[in-house]
């Protein structure tokens, strides 16, 4: 029962922190390039309140705060990496949509490539065996 209350409580408090702020937030950018940089950067960051939206689209009040923070840091000359590092230090790697390449994510980043490689080797083996057999040429009538 208390578990239910806890989840209900969390849902409620998240709803309330999601209240009132709007993702549409005209900021005084220096130029178009800076605006595009801001858009790209905030799209790569996760909103922790509405966890399935990025920082650019989230309407949560905290998201608005963090967007302002990102904007201020951009204005004071920080690089994208530094801004991301600032947020990660406070909120955990989870705030990045792009998982960093570290031992915990090697499986994620390399397994697909390894799978393709294994598959390719298997295919090459299959082909070597298959292509030894005599082949009957197909006439264009049979081609489909």
């Amino acid at each position, binding site marked *: 029962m208390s578990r239910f209350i806890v989840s209900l409580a969390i849902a409620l408090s998240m709803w309330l922190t999601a209240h009132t702020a709007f993702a549409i937030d005209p900021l005084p950018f220096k130029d178009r390039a800076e605006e595009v940089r801001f858009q790209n950067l905030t799209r790569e960051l996760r909103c922790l309140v509405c966890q399935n939206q990025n920082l650019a689209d989230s309407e949560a009040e905290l998201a608005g705060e963090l967007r302002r923070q990102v904007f201020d840091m951009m204005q004071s000359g920080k690089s994208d990496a530094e801004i991301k590092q600032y947020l990660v230090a406070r909120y*955990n790697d989870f705030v990045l949509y792009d998982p960093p390449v570290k031992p915990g994510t090697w499986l*994620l980043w390399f397994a697909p490539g390894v799978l393709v490689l294994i598959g390719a080797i298997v295919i090459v083996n299959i082909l070597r065996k298959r292509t030894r057999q005599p082949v009957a040429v*197909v006439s264009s009538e049979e081609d489909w």
Partner: protein
Amino acid sequence: MSPELGQFALILALLLAFVQFTLPTYGAWRGNAALIGLARPVVAGQAVFVVLAFALLTYAFVTQDFSVVYVAQNSNLSLPWYYRFPAVWGAHEGSLLLWILILNVWTVAVAAFSRRLPDALMARVLGVLGFISFGFLLFTILTSNPFLRHLPALTDGNDLNPILQDPGLIMHPPMLYTGYVGFSVAFAFAIAALLGGELDIAWVRWARPWTNVAWGFLTLGISLGSWWAYYVLGWGGWWFWDPVENASFMPWLVGTALIHSQAVTEKRGSFRAWTLLLSIFAFSLSLLGTFLVRSGVLTSVHAFASDPKRGTFILIFLGIVVGGSLLIYALRAPKVAGGKAFRLLSRETLLLINNLLFTCAAAMVLLGTLYPLIGDALGVGRISVGPPYFGFMFVLLMLPAIFLMPLGPFFRWATADWRATLRALRPALVIAIAAAITAKLLTHDLPLRGVAGVAGALWVGVGIVLYAVKRWRDAPRGKRYTPEMFGMICAHFGVAIFLTGVLITEATSVERDLRAAPNESVNLAGLDFRFKGVEHTQGPNYVADEGTLEVRDGDEIIAVLHPQKRAYSGGGQPQTISAIRPSLYRDLYVALGEPLDNGAWSVRVYVKPFVRWIWLGGLCMMFGGFVAATDRRFRTLPERADETAPTPLATTTSRAAT
């Protein structure tokens, strides 16, 4: 009264489903024609009761019977009448009933249109479909009963989630479900073939049209979902790699590999193991998707309310169905590779590579989607995987496929004349490179993605057109394009259209957040957006602030847009309803923010070139899939003795007497 009738109908359907998967299958095993003959009538009976249950639930919604808990949770008195129908599948219980309904529609279709199939095979196919239906009906009755009552009846309900009060809800779920439930037919054929130890691979020929149609519907469902998200969520995106989106994309990827692999198996007798496994995987991923969406194991904007009990049930069912089928595969799959031989350079090799790439892409999406869970299991902390990962890896895996695609139709079976192919495709290569260079010169800030996209799209598009032209010239009249070939041409051309849309939109869309004061203009992408203020307006169950923006190209007004911010009477967050001026070459898109000082409002404006091509490409692919399924040869028995290599499917002797 009628909700109880609905429950009763479900129970009767459950019993009939039980009969459907036990008796005819046993009959096929023992050669008992009477039991085999039970299959079709039982299928019809089950379908009748499922339709009845669904109709009764719909009736409860239409008459606003708030004594039914599910109705009260998903509609209220102010819900417009036309949303009462799709509200039936607006949440977990009802959408599950929709799933079962669609499964029954497929089963009835298979039973009705397969008179020429061997009876034992038919009995097994319907038996497998019956087992799946049984599992879902049991799940529904035990854990997700939509007919539960709340007595005394409530006087009003919660609202249907405002985001679902949209025409998209009417189309997207049914089309999507028709697609990935449809893969159950290919699955059933594969299992039936394995169980029966079929002596030839004719079953693939029977399975192909069903698989192509299912794939077409899934393509349509995914395209609709993408389009719906684009205009309803307000942020101009069309794909988010959200776990639930991925849950529908994985079956699509495997399904694409499957339809190609089936072609090889049917015509050449090769790739039997691939076709069997892909048939199992495609539907397994559909079931997995059902699990992911309803078990609460992953967080998603799309997910239905989660419940560990439901999750456990679906997982057990998944384990039985998929584990059972993979066990049957391990025991009875062909031990020796069969089929006609082929050279290294041949269409078979290309399709083998195709199988590999699409399967790996599906595996990659699965890995990324489940990785947060893997991270928790390995104890490496909460890992977040999003579009940067998926987008990057997917493009990487698909690049070889894009490059090889135009070669496919030109390469022959068994041995390909690669020189002739490259000669034939030279115009495509030249046009692609030339266009890419031109694009780069015309729009100097086009990033590499855009350049590569233009090249790739033209390579594929011109390549398939060249093949169509060659076929027109070389083949005799009346036999130029079989439906299968025509479908292939449409679908591949659809890929080119899709690529064009994606890469141009991603490279050239512009977006700005603006402070819009009344009668002030802002400039974006050469267009003039003039804000004319905001007014109050009302709808059937909401009040809204409606803005007006005039869009000018030079002096001419090309569009007047009315974005809204709605507050629904049922409560909940205010909904941003964006205003879009669609067109084939450029979408204008405006979303309203909040009021600022002096009558000004914050506004987000997008200009998105070519974004409609994304869904147009999807529609072309769907059309190709449907056309290919109409080919008459799928409905006839093999005409020539050597047309399909009579290699045994299993090396154990078949016990079935047909």
